[in-house]
């Protein structure tokens, strides 16, 4: 089962094999959770939406067409739920901005991207950079952020993202470019500040 494609697992599940669905959940829950979490920026809501996404997959299993890629369908459900939640304004941005995400014990960000500084100062700088980048992502317009997240977090291709979002592939790429440009600006702004502080 573990080697089966998503689509064949879904078919098996439709035949009544619950184990196949279990494998599907195990395979996609992490990426889906991260996509939803970055989208709604609220841990508790992300948990609920993740669950709701899978429940809708269960309910709509018969509606899924074999020709369609399963991930596209699942992410369409998740994305629609996120958009609805955002529209209802139930997410709390303030909580998520301070919510710790990532491994605090992991290597410092600055070491990975600059490789210059080391020690406590570098670590503090790295944390600050991470926070700024995260703020920059949160500040992206929803239509850019969702595409950025689907590409970077969920690792979906541009044509799949276009199907999920319901727009053309060129629009998707254009939005992605805008999103990357804004993040690059945030990164450079921070680097300038860091250099000025030296």
């Amino acid at each position: 089962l573990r080697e089966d494609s998503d689509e064949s697992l879904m078919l098996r599940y439709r035949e009544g094999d619950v184990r196949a669905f279990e494998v599907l959940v195990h395979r996609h829950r992490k990426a889906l959770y991260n996509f939803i979490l970055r989208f709604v920026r609220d841990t508790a809501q992300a948990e609920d939406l993740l669950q709701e996404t899978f429940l809708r997959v269960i309910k709509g299993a018969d509606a899924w067409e074999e020709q369609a890629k399963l991930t596209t369908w699942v992410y369409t459900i998740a994305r629609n739920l996120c958009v609805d939640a955002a529209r209802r304004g139930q997410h709390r941005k303030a909580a998520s901005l301070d919510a710790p995400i990532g491994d605090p014990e992991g290597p410092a960000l600055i070491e990975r991207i600059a490789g210059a500084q080391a020690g406590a100062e570098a670590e503090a700088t790295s944390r600050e950079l991470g926070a700024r980048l995260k703020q920059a992502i949160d500040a992206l317009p929803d239509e850019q952020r969702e595409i950025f997240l689907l590409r970077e977090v969920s690792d979906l291709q541009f044509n799949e993202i276009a199907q999920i979002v319901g727009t053309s592939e060129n629009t998707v790429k254009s939005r992605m470019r805008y999103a990357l440009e804004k993040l690059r600006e945030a990164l450079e702004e921070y680097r300038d500040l860091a250099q000025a502080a030296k």
Partner: protein
Amino acid sequence: MNGATENRTGTCEQLLEYAYGELGAEPRRAFEQHLAGCASCQAELASLERVRGAVKASLPLVEPPVNVTGALHAQLLHAAAQRAGGRGKLRQLRRKLPRLLLSPAFLAAAMFVVVGTAAGTMWWRGRVMMPGRPAATATVTEHESVNANANVSESVNTTANEKASANADDKDTAFGSAAPKAEHHAVAAKKKAVHAAQTNDGLSGLPALEPQGQPSKLYLEGRKEDRPMAVERVVPRPASAKGEEAPLQRAFAPAAPAAAAPPPAPVKATPMAEQSDGLMGGAEGYASGSAESTKAAPKPIDRRKQAARLADQGRCDEALRLYQQLVHDPSLRLTPDERLKYVDCLRQARLTQQALDELETLKREPAVASKVRREQQLLDGEVRAKAKAKPLPAAAPAEAKPAQ
């Protein structure tokens, strides 16, 4: 990305796809050739990779919190199994039908129906042959006689009915239209017979009936005065015998065909709580072989005991897993107390909606009414707390792992 340059070409537009590895082999090779000679693309690519590297480092993929994973897993499997059960129900039935038809339970049930119908028909024929007997009364009596489900009242009922009908027949023959009086006699005879049966037939566990003429509200609830007294209603049927009250939306248990259902347990007037306590008791037997029995395909009774024990010990995750299996098992029917424990486990696993659904079905069980109310209060409290503010799970940061 780093500001468009004047000499950008159509090939430069492929930078994004190239960076994300979406170009096919041939276009990729073509772009790499272009890249070697395009300073603008080189700078933009480097910038893009820097941003992506920073993003990956600052936003590693996090694992869903452990409690979410567990609860989600249980809930999803529950829903998936429910759906799969529903879909495969017809197929399963078709597969099981030959086996079911030959099962002892089915044969016993069939025998019961045949004998009951034959007896009822014979008795009814005897009744309708008599002149001056109101047909409606005869129908009602026959219906109640045939449909008597409680074991005790079954034999009692037959005796009482025979006696009553004999009396009625006598009267009918003699006076033509003495049906009301005959019914009165029938009622009295049934009451007497029930009383005698309860005091003499070994069912000492039954609560004593109230004196004749003052029927207990509890036991005669719903009785209509204008009917012959339905003796079979005197003793409450166990919950398991109430097919119509079985929760239709039970989580895992695809409804077993009625014919294949195990025959109703002998009527005992002990409260459900006591029944389940008895089930959960017997700690010596459990302690002696529980470990092995759980490893090697334990019997349902062992699993039930084990689940109850785990729930009592507060090991709700394990208990929940067992209960999920038990609820799945179509050959089993959990007692209200067990189902209450199951609800408690669901609540502790934060499967609030599922717990509420299960609790809804338990509300019909008078034996656990107070416990149900208490559980309902707990769940309501949780729902309110969740609606008010969902606390961030402390496990989230600890679970975080850098993206691969």
